[in-house]
């Protein structure tokens, strides 16, 4: 049995891949909420680490939007990413209160220490570097966020130590 997607003219087989099924489950769990779009996008990104391309037609069809609309929404928000990130997402606060205590130097240091620019992922896929505008730790900056942890008073030396710690955990796991 085929279900037709009237927006793309492309048929979605009922035999969904496991990934598609997982996406459909996330969407179905939240679709009844008023204004369900952001909760759904968060749920998908929390589960996969990013919003896979194949999520777009599923969300579009379930919420009765066009794919272009769904794309437009995803691209509007800095938080959502459409490509997998590295194992650790490192966000550097670029905002004023952190600038006042060396945030710009930290930013430069982080880029050169990891060898990537913003939105880049290291070759070993351990780290993705992102900018962020304030983490609410403005009295004790420079601030960075790694996963759901915030770190304060991060100077270049402390940054290197954190990166070393995170890299070390990876080795142990393997």
């Amino acid at each position, binding site marked *: 049995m085929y279900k037709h997607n009237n927006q793309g003219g492309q048929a979605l087989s009922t035999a969904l891949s496991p990934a598609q099924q997982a996406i459909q489950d996330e969407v179905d769990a939240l679709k009844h909420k008023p204004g369900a779009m952001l909760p759904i996008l968060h749920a998908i990104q929390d589960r996969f680490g990013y919003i896979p391309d194949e999520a777009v037609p599923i969300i579009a069809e379930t919420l009765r939007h066009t794919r272009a609309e769904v794309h437009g929404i995803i691209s509007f928000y800095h938080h959502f990413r459409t490509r997998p990130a590295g194992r650790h997402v490192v966000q550097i606060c670029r905002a004023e209160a952190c600038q006042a*205590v060396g945030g710009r130097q930290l930013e430069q240091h982080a880029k050169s220490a990891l060898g990537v620019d913003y939105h880049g992922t290291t070759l070993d896929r351990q780290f993705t570097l992102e900018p962020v505008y*304030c983490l609410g730790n*403005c009295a004790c900056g420079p601030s960075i966020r790694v996963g759901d942890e915030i770190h304060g008073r991060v100077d270049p030396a402390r940054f290197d130590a954190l990166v070393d710690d995170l890299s070390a955990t990876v080795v142990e796991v393997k």
Partner: protein
Amino acid sequence: MSVTVYVPADTTARALGADRVADALRQAAAERGLDLTLIRNGSRGLFWLEPLVEVATPEGRVAYGPVTPEAVPALVEAGLFDGGQDHDLALGLTEDIPYLKNQQRLTFSRIGITDPLSLDDYTGLRGFEGLRKALTLDGQGIIDEVKASGLRGRGGAAFPTAIKWQTVHDEPPGQKYIVCNADEGDSGTFADRLVMECDPYMLIEGMTIAGLAVGATQGYIYLRSEYPLAQKIFNEALARAYQAGYLGEDILGSGKHFDLEVRLGAGAYICGEETSLLDSLEGKRGQVRAKPPLPAIQGLFGRPTVVNNVLSLAAVPFILDQGGQAYADYGLGRSRGTLAIQLAGNVKRGGLVELAFGTTLRALMEDFGGGTLSGRPLKAVQVGGPLGAYLPESQWDSPMDYEAFAAFGGVVGHGGVVMFDDSVDMGEQARFAMEFCTVESCGKCTPCRIGSVRGVEVIDRIRAGENQDANLELLSELCDTMVDGSLCAMGGMTPFPVQSVLKHFPDDLTRSRGGSPC
């Protein structure tokens, strides 16, 4: 022997190692066979002392800070578990620390004292008394109390809260909403976060009272995704409040109904603007709506909606419990009550300072803040977030109140005070203001979307020493165009920091890097 120790668990304390300090204390207690009760309290907001460890003694709680895990053995040796004061990090009785003692904490009266998730702690310090009072009044009675308090919105625009509520109240009955703006995007601000992490039931109580006042049964908290800990703590508080009957279909057996849900933003500064926030809550791109219609008349899903900042709603339990007049007794002129000032950036003693309106900026930065962290002279201060002007020393003696600030083109905004020492390059700060707008503009109108891109280019040219006079004039015209032609304050106020640099720190802008000044 048993001892009670407090180690804060808010974002800043944890960012500075509070979890490892807690572990070290547990270990030290175990080694001594002590019966330790370790409470993860909220922060007192004295951030330069975090992690601030407190120990309960018969005289009251005594404090130590900033404590590192490495310092724990020596502190314990010096008698920390008995409240011993023979150590460099010992601070005496917490309540006697001048920074705290000299504040007027009405909204933040409980932070750092309680376990944020303990309902007993909350009700033990007058928690839910405001709600109980509200349940004895009708909607108009609640609004009258808020009116008497003189409360104005703490999110930025300083609009009288009671008038907003009255508009929603007066709309015909039907689905209405309370939306709490917890997007707290301004750099230099963290007071909303402190409410949600350190006294979450206060916000739940304030929103419930707002719902009773206007006849709304559903509330949403729009929380920025940059605050993962606030999300976690607040959701747990919601679950416990439901369980205990403070939320749901029959609040405290009154037959009144109010539901609350947290919705997460997704890293867009503009979604702090209330109409953009509503579009985002509806599941759309967060683009600004033209006003009118006002959200109070056609807000979320087209229904009458109160949109208030966290701090506006958090002030309400006190107002209902103690009476509007008790709140209005603080402050001056048309700025009534207290302001939550947040000292940030290059400051020696950063943190939360809640005071009646009217203290001067200089007193805040010097008496409370203790000057810069670096010890170098203070050069500029940005008040009111990224859209606020950079204030030079000649403006530091102005009292912090809405009218006094407006008089010289400043904004109090959400109360963020970001300090810079003399190593700052104000030209770079002006450039950043424009750059931030290119990143965060919602894209709806040209002066903001394109103007900010041009702004960055022109500032780069000025800083490179190209045609400085002509480009300075261009920059000034561009600022005027953005101020006059933008739909909302994002494009309309981005020029404020830039113009303040042009006016007060022009040398920083024209001092060309590398090339010779023309």
